[in-house]
């Protein structure tokens, strides 16, 4: 059974927010749209975004890290938002595992927001219905688009290609391989939601230099005759022993 999902590579995400607004611009004029904005030009503007990037600092200076953390609906395999919905508006598609909201059934009660441990739901204050990431369900099957464009908008936009998309149940998919090989993990597994989306951790490249690598036979200082030589006045055994 197919389970579509995103894998987000925190190793390369620079926090540019391309996923945030490319999602907004696709979806506001798509089947989930419009995605409303309250006070768009006034105090405390707030709108519906399916994707948000949070930035955290970890540790204390100087041993600190800055982490950019993009977050959207994780399309859980056991989504707690579905059973709590009194109208059946929250549902999980059998075909591909995408969790959707049926806007025509949603009554805006927000139970699902309370049930979702990830804070991934976005209430549209204008339409008074719950919205959330659809994995661009209205793009990915659209035969009128070129095949390379049949991806979620955020995946296409991401300049660092930090967002991978595919079937997490297919062990040969790009995302399954990435999870396997690069230490992919799910968020808060203790909740038993089995999020389909995964994250890849930071990976560090280090360079170990051994002191004996600093100098080589072809050191140019030899050519230029300036290889440092010990000073004749430096300490030597001659100072202390006559054998």
């Amino acid at each position, binding site marked *: 059974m197919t389970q579509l999902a995103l894998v987000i590579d925190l190793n390369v995400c620079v926090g540019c927010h391309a996923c945030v607004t490319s999602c907004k611009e696709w979806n506001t004029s798509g*089947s989930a749209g419009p*995605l409303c*904005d309250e006070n768009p030009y006034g105090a405390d503007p707030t709108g519906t975004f399916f994707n948000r990037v949070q930035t955290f600092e*970890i540790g204390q*200076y100087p041993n600190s890290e800055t982490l950019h953390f993009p977050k959207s609906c994780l399309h859980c395999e056991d989504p707690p938002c579905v059973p709590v919905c009194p109208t059946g508006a929250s549902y999980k598609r059998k075909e591909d595992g995408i969790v959707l909201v049926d806007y025509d059934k949603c009554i805006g009660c927000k139970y699902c927001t309370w049930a979702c441990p990830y804070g991934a739901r976005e209430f549209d204050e204008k339409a008074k219905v719950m919205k959330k990431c659809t994995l661009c369900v209205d793009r990915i099957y659209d035969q009128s688009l070129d095949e390379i464009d049949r991806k979620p908008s955020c995946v296409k936009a991401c300049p660092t290609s930090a967002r991978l998309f595919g079937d997490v149940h297919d062990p040969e998919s790009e995302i399954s391989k990435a999870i396997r090989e690069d230490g992919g993990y799910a968020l808060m597994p203790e909740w038993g939601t089995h999020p389909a989306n995964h994250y890849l951790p930071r990976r560090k490249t280090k360079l170990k230099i051994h002191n004996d690598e600093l100098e080589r036979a072809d050191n140019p200082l030899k050519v230029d005759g300036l290889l440092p030589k010990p000073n004749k006045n430096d300490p030597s055994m001659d100072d202390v022993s006559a054998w």
Partner: protein
Amino acid sequence: MCFDNLDNLAKKNLMSSTPLHDPFAPPVADAKTEVRNTTCYMCACRCGIRVHLRNGEVRYIDGNPNHPLNNGVICAKGSSGIMKQYSPARLTKPLRRKAGTERGAGEFEEVSWEETFSILGERLGKIRATDPKKFALFTGRDQMQALTGLFARQFGTPNYAAHGGFCSVNMAAGMIYTIGGSFWEFGGPDLERSKLFIMIGTAEDHHSNPMKVALSKFKREGGRFISINPVRTGYSAIADEWVPIRPGTDGALMLALIHELIALGLYDRDFLVRYTNSGQLVNLDAAHDEFGMFVRTEVPEEEGCYDPQNKLWWDRNTNKPVVTHKEGADPFLFGEFKLSDGTPVKPAFQLLKERVEDYTPEWAEQITGISAETIRRLAHEMGITARDQQIELPIAWTDSWGKEHDSVTGNPVSFHAMRGLAAHSNGFQTIRALSILMTLLGTIDRPGGFRHKTPFPRPIPPCARTPNDPRAVQPNSPLDGMALGWPSDPDDLFVNADGTPVRIDKAFSWEYPLSVHGLMHNVITNAWRGDPYKIDTLLLFMANMAWNSSMNTSEVRKMLVDKEEDGGYKIPFIVVCDAFHSETTAFADLILPDTTYLERHDVMSMLDRPISEFDGPVDSVRIPVLPPTGECKPFQEVLIELGTRLKLPAFVTKEGQRKYRNYPDFIVNWETAPGSGIGFLSGWRGKGGEKTMRGEPNPNQWEMYAKNDCVHHYKLPRSYQFMRNWNKGYLEWSQRMGITRYAEPILIHLYSEVLQKFRLAAQGKSITRQPPAHLAKRVETYFDPLPFYYEPLEAQTSDKLKYPLSALTQRPMAMYHSWDSQNAWLRQIHSHNYLYVNSRTAKDAGIADGDWIWVESQWGKVRCMASYSESLEPGTVWTWNAIGKAAGAWNLTPDANESQQGFLLNHIISEELPAQADGKRFSNSDPITGQAAWYDVRVRIYKAEEGEPEQTSPQFEPLKKYPGMKEHPSWLAYFGGGKKKDNAK
């Protein structure tokens, strides 16, 4: 629990097991859709975009997968183009300040374009007929400097520049005067083949998408990424190692790294010998007029030769002086020698070694705050990676001296740096040091290192010159020379006989001799004070000079409205062209409403700052996707029309008749000289579009660009793609294409004779012009032919006990300059800014996270909110620039976060240094290039008093909306090109 929609609930069939809402149904029935290619302008990256229209409205914008710059990706700004296009901050009509109202009061009335042109034509015509320098044209990040520069020159005014002087001119000048190329548009790190990448002080909105694409590939392929920066955000977040550094001390770090590389012999000797002036002998006879200059021999100069190969090495094989690059010769890099006439000489590299002798890692530790151990390790990582991981590519090429090489080799260590180094008053010498570090590692235009992009490399310095004589400015005549150029010695300065500046910004004068991008940041102050003279009309294009683009903003705003005793304004007439309402348009006497990028033709020209790739020249165009809004007119069209009405020679026939119908016609038909075959666009030239770079005008050029994704990419043969400073084939190609006049090798200036010529003049030794006495010491001090470290000028005059912290700004990836606060989506990402303070520094000052505080410099103070940070060098505070706005500006409501919680640091940064003993004030800039020293300011922070308003200070009278502007809605429900659209009020 409250059900807001109980009415609707009843209507919904809750029993249905299938979804009622069909996510696959077309959201708009029978929509007419269309896809158009053009080029993005949400920042200066210039990515290829596809604009998807539905029923004539923008449905969405995505990256063009076939575009060489962005390969289909797009950023947060590019994805928010819709909100720029339909922003309520847009200006839609030409506006004139209402008669009888005060400038700055924001009282405007509509005027027709005909009236606008007639006002401008009359006023500018009079100026041109009397004293053309009374007209000043200064532009922001406009991407059309080739055209604005042409207009100014044709008008005859020297007073033209773009924003480079307050942006990153130190980066351009420091590198171009050293290696003949620089970062960003003109070159960059070859991350595809690099193994070690060091990023230093980089603005995250610069060259952002290509950098993001390359950086992620680099990391995934196991490259090591080190970030040297006082702040860890954006790119630095994913660095394998972050090295926090104190602001303004990068020069000290570079010099210590050079010290260590030379001490250990971790430099690429073969590269230094053949491709740099390291082995050239410098005259050290202190009594000689040529002291500090390279010794030259009697080689007959080739006609028209730019940099004759007539310098000497001291050959190790024969122990004699020989002409450089002599077959079989190998120079000493160290030592001292005596010529037969007794002249003492040393190789330039010996002088560099002596220079860095005392610049030890321990010395640098005290200045930079980076431990000596770390500095050593960094040097070792660079040196060893460069040496032990050399790349060899099977590409045969021939060097300028005729030597054939079987392969191209490279040392895979690369760098990228930007304003963090540049925006200090010691930035030029710091960037010289960086360029020399890159050179020692042997990484210039080689795989894995720094790579040039056409039209670079150029001779050092490039050949363009300003006039050097005030008589170049004549009534009714074009300027006899370029308004901006590259001085090669004091005789190139644009000064009066007494050494005073010809230009209003004092560029190319003894105060800032190598100010190759001008000093836009001093134009208003100088014009207001009448020093060096008063002007009549200031035309600003797309530059927010009454806000984030000026230092000392509060005072500059007063200057804009200050009056003479006779009641006239000190700056008599101000014209602003912009697409948006802003703090600056408020001070205009005349506003010209520009189009957005989706509504106009534009070129990213080889004559300006093209979008070339490492493998060859690339230029591109914009083609209108939408009709202009209201009466908006592209500034290009305004210039062509104005140029025609003023009968500027480039825009009219000999008989004085209109030469170009409009901007697209101009672009196709204008040539640099009649029949030169060189114009704004390099693609599809020749009558049928069969030629590249050079060829006759092609009447169908725009159509051919349109058919080809709006971009032209010429891939150089592989043998021309590397070592271009000394690549015979490439240089001759470049000469044939008219890219450069000279094809001589461009030796790297490890030692800078250009700087030494200025120093000699200051010492009274040269045969060139000499500086006025009061500037001699300044020129002598800073024009050192070898890089050196000095404390930034403002810090030298600050009480560092009172003001212990450095204050910086940087720009977030989701905003470009001040442009995006009017963007409903982007402003939700950054609606206001905090002053970030290291938690330890904050606690020491008794400041809690989120407190209202004052940040104060010797120039003034600003109230703002503090936010704790752990990713910050403790002696530094910083904020995002240009998020804070004046109340009401950009058609935001007066209570918007931008003006109430957001703040602008510029209020406490001065555009001038404290007065000298004679009362004169220098610009707060690099004394060599005039680069604005934004990041030199020293501050202290303290908690705001109890009871103070929780609002940023200073505040200004809220700006008004102008005629022709839309209301700002309280709700936005954008739905492009469909019935679902609902923009509630």
